[in-house]
């Protein structure tokens, strides 16, 4: 049996002033697999993350839903929190109840609360299907190929070479320099272009 924990964030008054927090927490704690649900003013803050870590340990949570801002903002933050709590960081799902709920439905708190609950239900449903994932690494060959020996290619090659890496510069014409070497003076300073 899964042990899902839900952490609903107020984001100060950003979410807290629109969504009825106590109603939301009560509703979502009844979803299947959920063994713990709570809310806090700022879930991303250090004390907020500590609440998640403590709850994971105390309630032996194996999956986490954070209902807060957009995952594009803090997904990476909460993945690290899960790792600190000893869980696989990919057993996290976020419910976006700020950008895509509280902020766009400010004038309809009743409906916003209902929508927040449904968005959390989506997250619970998904989190229950998640599997642990592991990052792999690939080696990097520290040599660059630059195609084109005009001003752009030469500048790129010189900058990379100056940083200490090998560069292969390929030019199809018999000489490098490209169009720029064909020019006379260049605006606005009228420097020569060689």
């Amino acid at each position, binding site marked *: 049996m899964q042990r899902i924990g839900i952490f609903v964030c107020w984001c100060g008054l950003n979410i807290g002033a629109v969504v009825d927090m106590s109603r939301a927490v009560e509703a979502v704690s009844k979803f299947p697999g959920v063994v713990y649900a709570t809310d806090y003013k700022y879930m991303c803050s250090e004390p907020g993350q500590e609440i998640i870590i403590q709850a994971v340990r105390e309630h032996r949570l194996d999956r986490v839903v954070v209902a807060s801002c957009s*995952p594009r903002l803090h997904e990476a933050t909460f993945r690290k929190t899960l790792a600190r709590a000893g869980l696989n960081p990919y057993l996290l799902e976020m419910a976006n109840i700020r*950008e*895509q709920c509280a*902020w*766009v439905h*400010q004038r309809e708190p009743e*409906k916003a609360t209902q929508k927040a609950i*449904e968005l959390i239900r989506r997250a619970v449903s998904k989190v229950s299907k998640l599997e642990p994932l592991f990052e792999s690494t690939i080696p990097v060959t520290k040599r660059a190929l630059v195609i084109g020996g005009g001003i752009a290619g030469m500048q790129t090659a010189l900058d990379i070479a100056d940083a200490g890496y090998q560069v292969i510069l390929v030019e199809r014409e018999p000489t490098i320099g490209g169009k720029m070497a064909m020019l006379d003076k260049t605006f606005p300073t009228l420097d020569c272009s060689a």
Partner: protein
Amino acid sequence: MSVTEQWEPKIIGFCCNWCSYAGADLAGVSRLNYPTSIRVIRVPCSGRVNPVFILRAFQRGADGVLVSG
């Protein structure tokens, strides 16, 4: 069945993480307002949306599906 004033459609939105999901976030950041009837599912690309997802939404009672990316 007549459409009453209280009736609200249930709309499922599939939004690409890199563009329209970010756009939906931007709508929030800009404090735009829109009806509560849409619920968004984040996908890595609109190309990820299998027609089966859309059919399933309709099967389960959705009134509309928005695929955006």
